[in-house]
């Protein structure tokens, strides 16, 4: 068995222990572990840095399978006999990281978180970070700068050893299961790729990718690229940036914007109502104004008509007067001839009649007129008796006569 081909294995040292002659450990990766042993003599020859071989160290080991037959107290076992160990360099880690990155990308796990809706104003956020560290302080400062003062639920976890990845994954899952939490921040300061290796853990990254709560990663500095950055909804270079990503809304600016919006609404409301009110008032005044205008026009017409009619009347009167004068004069002229004839005829008839009644004419026919001394006619026997003496007027002259009362008749 010891003649089998030598191979190199890559993994993380766990469960390191030492006996008098050997060092025992497990070489672990995401899929499992291999029990390993190295003779202390071989280990010393490697001249690893002090504490180079320790739990959590990423190493590349060379060796091959070996078998321990056991004894009265110990059970037999197969294990990997390491003859060479070196600490994994950036190159080893990067190669592993790239392979894992391609695998997760191919599975579409980079997109899942990025498709989640992120609230602009979460009321509660969860944060996974080290209890003591600048990341915690920087994140809080960033949140305060945005004017955000909601609820932060801290889930403190180790961020740099082999316990880190499972602890972080567990914390993230617990936070995601807390109903109030609307977004989760995973924050850690900068470091070497080996320091940040926990954030490249496949299980952790798969856990983050499958969460339905958005995760904002703020691991390391700008130049550091961990796998959790790829699967998270947003990757930030610093905790301060993470504060802006987890609360996208600048609360100070939002308050100012709301004040402006409220003012716009007030202006719009008042403006619309005001302009329409003015329009309505103008419309309401319209009929009155129109009536006044009509009344004025009517009065004007009335005055004109009156003036016109007075003028017309005067003219008509004058005309009528002229007409009457003309008619009268014409009538007078017309009447003048006939009237004169009539009058002449009437005069003639009157004259005839008058002449017929004239006492002298009667006297001419033989009658006599008795008159008293005063010349008044005496027309009755009684008057003659009373007069005693009368004057008898004949056509050819008068004579006095004594009334004989005895000779009276009647």
């Amino acid at each position, binding site marked *: 068995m010891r003649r089998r081909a030598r191979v190199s294995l890559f993994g993380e040292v766990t469960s390191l222990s030492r006996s008098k002659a050997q060092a025992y450990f497990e070489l672990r990766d995401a899929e499992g572990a291999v029990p390993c042993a190295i003779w202390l003599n071989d280990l010393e020859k490697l001249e690893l840095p002090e504490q180079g071989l320790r739990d959590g160290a990423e190493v590349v080991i060379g060796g091959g399978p070996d078998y321990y037959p056991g004894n009265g107290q110990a059970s037999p076992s197969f294990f990997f006999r390491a003859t060479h160990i070196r600490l994994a360099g950036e190159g080893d880690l990067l190669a592993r990281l790239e392979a894992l990155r391609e695998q997760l990308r191919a599975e579409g796990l980079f997109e899942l978180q990025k498709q989640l809706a992120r*609230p*602009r*104003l*979460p*009321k509660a956020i*969860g944060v996974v970070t080290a209890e003591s560290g600048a990341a915690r302080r920087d994140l*809080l400062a960033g*949140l*305060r700068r945005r*004017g*955000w*003062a*909601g*609820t*932060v*639920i*801290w*889930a*403190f976890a180790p961020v740099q050893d082999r316990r880190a990845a499972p602890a972080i994954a567990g*914390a993230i899952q*617990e*936070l995601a299961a*807390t109903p109030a939490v609307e977004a989760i921040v995973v924050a850690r300061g900068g470091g070497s790729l080996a320091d940040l290796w926990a954030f490249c853990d496949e299980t952790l990254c798969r856990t983050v990718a499958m969460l339905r709560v958005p995760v904002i990663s703020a691991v390391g500095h700008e130049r550091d690229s961990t796998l959790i950055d790829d699967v998270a909804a947003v990757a930030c270079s610093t905790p301060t940036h993470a504060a802006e990503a987890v*609360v996208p*809304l600048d*609360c100070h600016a*939002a*308050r100012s914007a*709301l004040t402006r*919006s*409220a003012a*716009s*609404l*007030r202006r*719009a*409301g008042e403006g*619309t*109502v005001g302009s*329409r009110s003015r329009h309505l008032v103008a419309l309401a005044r319209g009929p009155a104004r129109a009536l006044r205008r009509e009344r004025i026009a009517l009065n004007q017409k009335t005055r004109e008509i009156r003036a016109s009619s007075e003028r017309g009347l005067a003219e008509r009167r004058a005309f009528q007067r002229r007409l009457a004068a003309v008619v009268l004069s014409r009538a007078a002229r017309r009447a003048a001839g006939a009237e004169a004839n009539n009058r002449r005829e009437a005069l003639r008839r009157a004259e005839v009649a008058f002449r017929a009644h004239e006492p002298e004419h009667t006297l001419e026919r033989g009658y006599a007129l008795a008159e008293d001394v005063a010349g008044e006619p005496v027309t009755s026997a009684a008057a003659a008796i009373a007069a005693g003496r009368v004057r008898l007027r004949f056509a050819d002259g008068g004579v006095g006569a004594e009334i004989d009362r005895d000779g009276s008749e009647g």
Partner: protein
Amino acid sequence: MSEQPESYEAAVERLEQIIDRLDSGQAGLRETLELCREGRELVTYCVTELDAVGEGLKELQLDELAAKLETTPTES
């Protein structure tokens, strides 16, 4: 409020639409008054939401929260 907005961002988006519409001057009187009413409700909602995250940062620890939940008797 006639209908609670789905979220702060939905409220702000609707508010911006309303202000754009009002600024266009094309809304009639009835629509303007209705938009103003809706806008005022949205502003009130947004201010309430901002107030909810503006009255002092509260810090809780997940472990303590979990412990508290575990000790809380389950409602039957």
